[in-house]
């Protein structure tokens, strides 16, 4: 399967490890990500006012690129794959709005008269987790099962809500838990799996984020988790980097390593450590991996 891939800006900067591990795992499974050319930043958060069309330009421009790739038969899929939950959410919300409001789409197409075609509303946005689910978690060739590693799946907000774009039942999601079990690890049932991590408040209201993050980490620990997986670079930043800052401040705070789900998937698929960018994780993931000698050459 060759599928158009929308990385999103953060994949190229602080979330390189997410992209590396995702591309490597996908290749191992047999899915090739084809990065769409000249993509632009999706806008991270969707513009929710009824009258603001301009903020929907960016996603539509990306869909045009997918449309062009399909015309040039560079890919075998008409769906746009995203890794980051926020990109997924914003692109999907705009896509739905465009599909429902032909007049607004027409206005946007007219505005982008320098593009050589109009967006026909034919592209769908899909998250890597849904693709894996579609592919069949059981079909994953697990070479290095993460036996008795207790993993809490953290969804955050953007993967599940609002309902129109959620990839699973917002109140009782199971897709990441299924992946965790498929990887041979023990999935942990906990409450804070879709509680907000503070999102972009991390720019100017760091204490608020730290408060929320400590709540989430404690809830995970209370339910016996040893590691948390997520699929959003912003949640990862808040849970990982802000947690480390908290741990530095008060030493008795017991840290918990944060992974991108593709990193654990990479380990389970037996990928090399170099493919996974573990060195970029703020809280050192190696103790937990060493504890279960999971990672080849995890010194």
């Amino acid at each position: 399967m060759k599928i158009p891939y929308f990385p999103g800006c953060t994949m190229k900067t602080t979330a390189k490890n997410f992209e590396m591990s995702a591309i490597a795992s996908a290749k191992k499974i047999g899915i090739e990500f084809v990065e769409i050319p000249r993509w632009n930043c999706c806008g991270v958060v969707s513009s929710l006012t009824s009258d603001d069309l301009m903020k929907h330009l960016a996603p539509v421009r990306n869909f045009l690129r997918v449309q062009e790739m399909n015309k040039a038969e560079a890919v075998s899929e008409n769906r746009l794959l995203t890794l980051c939950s926020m990109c997924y959410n914003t692109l999907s919300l705009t896509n739905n709005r465009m599909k429902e409001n032909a007049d607004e789409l027409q206005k946007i197409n007219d505005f982008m008269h320098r593009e050589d075609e109009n967006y026909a509303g034919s592209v769908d946005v899909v998250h890597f987790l849904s693709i894996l689910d579609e592919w069949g978690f059981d079909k994953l060739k697990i070479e290095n099962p993460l036996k008795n590693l207790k993993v809490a799946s953290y969804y955050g907000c953007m993967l599940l809500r609002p309902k129109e774009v959620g990839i699973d039942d917002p109140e009782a999601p199971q897709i990441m838990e299924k992946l965790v079990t498929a990887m041979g690890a023990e999935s942990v049932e906990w409450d804070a799996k879709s509680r907000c991590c503070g999102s972009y408040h991390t720019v100017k209201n760091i204490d608020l984020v730290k408060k929320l993050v400590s709540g989430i980490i404690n809830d995970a620990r209370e339910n016996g988790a040893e590691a948390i997986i997520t699929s959003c670079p912003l949640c990862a930043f808040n849970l990982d980097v802000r947690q480390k800052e908290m741990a530095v401040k008060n030493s008795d705070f017991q840290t918990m390593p944060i992974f991108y789900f593709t990193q654990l998937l990479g380990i389970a698929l037996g990928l090399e450590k170099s493919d996974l960018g573990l060195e970029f994780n703020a809280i050192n993931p190696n103790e937990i991996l060493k504890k279960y000698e999971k990672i080849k050459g995890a010194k």
Partner: protein
Amino acid sequence: MAKKIKFTDKTTKFLEKIMDLSGEQVTLCEQCGTCSGGCPFVEEMDINPSQIMRLVMLGQEEVMESQTMWLCASCYTCTIRCPRKLDLSKVSEALRQVKLREAVDNIDIAEIDAAEAVKLPTIALVGNFRKFTG
């Protein structure tokens, strides 16, 4: 102490502006409080989300001075639970936009401390500026 409220064209116009901008029929809110209960940021808020809906319905422009709309990070928890299927994230976006469209940013982007800035992921900056600058 209770505040005396007088209903004028101004209060109705304010309500209509917010309803128009958000696309949500604020008068539908039955004040059940589910939104406030589920909101992860409610403890920091001076006015609860349900109270915001109330005051907007009463056309009280004092909501514009509250911190609630700035704390709301559009996590959509209230959106999926509101029994009247009202989308509070859209109402708080409308309130933010009224402020931002008066060219009043809620963050001074130049004041971000340099050491922090280098560390922050792009996703945080773009997200923050989209919601806090006009």
